[in-house]
């Protein structure tokens, strides 16, 4: 089966109607008075402020974790596949790919692509760039993403064959992960991670933690991309400083705007606040392997005791949607919209609590301010919602420093947060398979594991949809995590910068590819 383009969004009637309604709503409420120019104009400068990173950041993709690195990675380099602003998987350096059995994949590379130093892109560059994330000694954060890869070989200078140990119909999606930038390979076999790439911009000055400057690559292979002549990426960790910089015009766009100043920001004539639905979600994880949370009635009680809409309205200021205790967001493929949305029901919560054998129960929920903006507020609200059912949730504020080593997955009830993934398989395998390193809720369900494996290799879309639907149901009804919302990306942009009107939902700043996708208005 050949997939030059795999649509990630659902293409049934409901999807089209919902999509149409969303576009209509966006047209009425979201877009400013200015009409976007149909043809992007070349020229100008884009100055962007990112929020995560430090002065010790390097451009080595195996160390990529914060937004400074991810954004720079896609400014200077390309991947084999790309997630477009519409959420669909597009060819990038791989112009097409195919697989008969979802286990052996052949990627055909674009011809005539050159790196910034003049070297031509060949299969060897791709193989070396991917291999640095594999192997015993690799310290790459993406090692587990390629754990199922058995071999990567070249088939000529412009094709790469990747054989997996098991079937995975979503494999091309995995290659769009921010770690898998394609870098040139040196004659001695090592990978050149200095910033040379095939991307739209060439590195001029790299001062991580302060400012990085780039200039346009006149030789860029991608049509209708990279419109700015120059770019600057500035790191501003402090959200207030970032907002100030946006307001005074020192930067054109920032990665994330604080909720409490959104209304004021939106009133400024030269600032537009973007709100893009995404898959980021916060979780409250219960250790289902031990008492008391090994009782599903208690877990259900906890799930009924939370008012999800109130949290979206109060904590996210409306910039999000309610979630149904599973991590497959409405913008992801195979999202099963037919599952009834669990609502706030203190009576049902009380009923399940009694069935679990408690009249009332006191517990401590750990949270850290550093997880996401409003995390502590969300937990405080949860406490208020759960009170009437007999659930006494005590809020424990933990320091952000050391949260991941001391609290997360160590205490019986804690908060977590997950970034979006393009396909359900990635998040389900990472956090919900019984053998997953990061199985927060200590969830173990044989049927779920069986479905997960089967769906991964299933090439028939309808069958896959059914399997993922069943998995979502299992998680919603029996899983160890309470997932109340999916958060939208909210970030401010100066109106002197324009874009196509559709913004990527995988990362802020248009999928962290604003540098090549936006232009001067």
């Amino acid at each position, binding site marked *: 089966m050949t997939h030059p383009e795999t649509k990630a969004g659902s293409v049934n009637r409901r999807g089209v109607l919902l999509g149409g309604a969303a576009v209509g709503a966006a047209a009425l409420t979201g877009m400013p008075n200015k009409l976007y120019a149909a043809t992007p104009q070349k020229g100008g400068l884009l100055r962007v402020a990112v929020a995560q990173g430090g002065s010790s950041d390097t451009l080595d993709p195996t160390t990529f*974790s914060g937004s400074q690195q991810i954004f720079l990675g896609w400014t200077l380099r390309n991947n084999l596949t790309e997630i477009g602003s519409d959420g669909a998987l597009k060819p990038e350096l791989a112009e097409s790919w195919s697989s008969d059995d979802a286990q052996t994949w052949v990627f055909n590379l674009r011809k005539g692509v050159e790196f910034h130093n003049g070297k031509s892109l060949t299969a060897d560059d791709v193989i070396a760039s991917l291999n640095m994330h594999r192997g015993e000694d690799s310290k*790459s954060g993406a090692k587990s993403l390629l754990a199922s890869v058995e071999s990567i070989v070249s088939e000529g200078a412009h094709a790469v064959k990747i054989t997996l140990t098991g079937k995975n119909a979503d494999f091309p999606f995995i290659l769009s992960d921010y770690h898998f930038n394609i870098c040139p390979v040196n004659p001695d076999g090592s990978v050149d991670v200095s910033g040379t790439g095939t991307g739209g911009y060439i590195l001029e000055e790299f001062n991580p933690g302060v400012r990085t400057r780039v200039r346009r690559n006149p030789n860029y292979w991608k049509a209708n991309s990279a419109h700015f002549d120059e770019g600057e990426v500035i790191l501003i960790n*402090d959200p207030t400083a970032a907002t100030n910089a946006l307001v005074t015009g020192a930067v054109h766009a920032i990665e994330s705007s604080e909720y409490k100043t959104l209304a004021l920001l939106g009133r400024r004539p030269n600032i537009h606040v973007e709100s893009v639905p995404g898959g980021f979600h916060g979780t409250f994880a219960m250790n289902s392997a031990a008492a008391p949370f090994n009782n599903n009635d208690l877990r259900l009680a906890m799930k009924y005791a939370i008012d999800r809409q109130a949290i979206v309205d109060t904590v996210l200021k409306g910039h999000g949607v309610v979630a149904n205790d599973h991590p497959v967001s409405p913008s992801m493929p195979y999202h099963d919209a037919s599952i009834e949305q669990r609502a706030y029901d203190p009576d049902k919560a009380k009923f399940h609590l009694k069935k679990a054998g408690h009249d009332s129960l006191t517990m401590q929920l750990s949270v850290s301010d550093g997880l996401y903006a409003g995390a502590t507020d969300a937990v405080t609200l949860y406490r208020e919602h759960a009170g009437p059912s007999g659930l006494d949730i005590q809020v424990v504020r933990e320091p952000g420093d050391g949260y*991941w080593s001391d609290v997360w997955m160590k205490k019986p009830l804690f908060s977590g947060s997950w970034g979006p993934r393009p396909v359900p398989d990635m998040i389900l395998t990472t956090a919900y398979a019984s053998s997953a390193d990061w199985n927060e809720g200590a969830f173990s369900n044989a049927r779920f594991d069986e479905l997960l494996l089967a769906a991964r290799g299933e090439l028939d879309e309808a069958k896959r949809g059914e399997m993922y639907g069943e998995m979502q149901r299992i998680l919603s009804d029996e899983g160890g995590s309470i997932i109340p919302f999916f958060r939208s990306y909210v970030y401010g942009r100066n109106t002197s910068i324009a874009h196509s009107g559709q913004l990527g939902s995988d990362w802020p700043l248009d999928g962290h590819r604003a540098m090549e996708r936006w232009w001067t208005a």
Partner: protein
Amino acid sequence: MHAVLKMVVQRVALGVLTLLVVSALVFISVEFLPGDVAEQILGQSATPETLAALRDQLGLNTPPVERYFDWLGGILQGDFGQSVISQRPITELLAQRLGNTLSLALLATLISVPLAVGLGILAALKRNTWVDRTINIGTLTAISFPEYFVAYGLILIFSVKLGWFPSISIVSGTVTFAERIHLTLLPALTLTMIVTAHMMRMTRASIINLLALPYVEMARLKGASQRRVVVVHALPNAIAPIVNVIALNIAYMIAGVVIVEVVFVYPGLGQLLVDSVAKRDVTVVQAACLIFASAFIIFNLVADVISIVSNPRLLHRK
């Protein structure tokens, strides 16, 4: 001079001992923080195997005591080592940041010291009048506000409303001297507002003290003008305590301006230190703390020397 030289040598020796103690304490504190460098680098994407591989690669598996003495040995040979995370030599990392911090401290000093001493003299001369009270209230109010409040206040007025100065002070290698002043003026003003009160009050108190002495009365009787009495006769004797306070404040401006650096996104040592502590980059933290401790020691030494030199009784001790 002999007394001064002896004192300097003694102080330097004591200073080195202090630095040793500081470095040991910093090392121990960072060791006690939860998590370690490897966990910080990999963040949420850390798995037990990648952590082990990274720790091995970074040399974190040797016992702390051994690592500390390795590092100490390196310092004694002039090698500050490399950042644990990025493997870049620390000297190059720190050089630029230190330069930025020093230039900000210099600008703030050039504004605040003449201002504070001037206001102090004025307040001393016009003591108990409304001039004196206004100066006191003004400077004490400025120092009572938290630094970030002062910083945001200045940003609101000068950056957002008036648009005269940028709200972020990204100073990189390619800025001209004039641009640098333009970018760092707001942070320097913030620092000025914070340190002025201390120096002003000390100046005022020392001068008031001296103006009550007989020799000043003598100078007045001789017909010397008010200005001459204060500047030529009183001020030289007031220098010792004033210089001590100025030295302390300058050292503070080098070592204590993290908040101002974060608010203005100024690439100085303070921000680097906070960053490195969060990332558990021990070697960078050590180096930065040593620099801060040295700053305090050096400035205190300079202040003491000036005090002695300006006081003939101490200078020519028998």
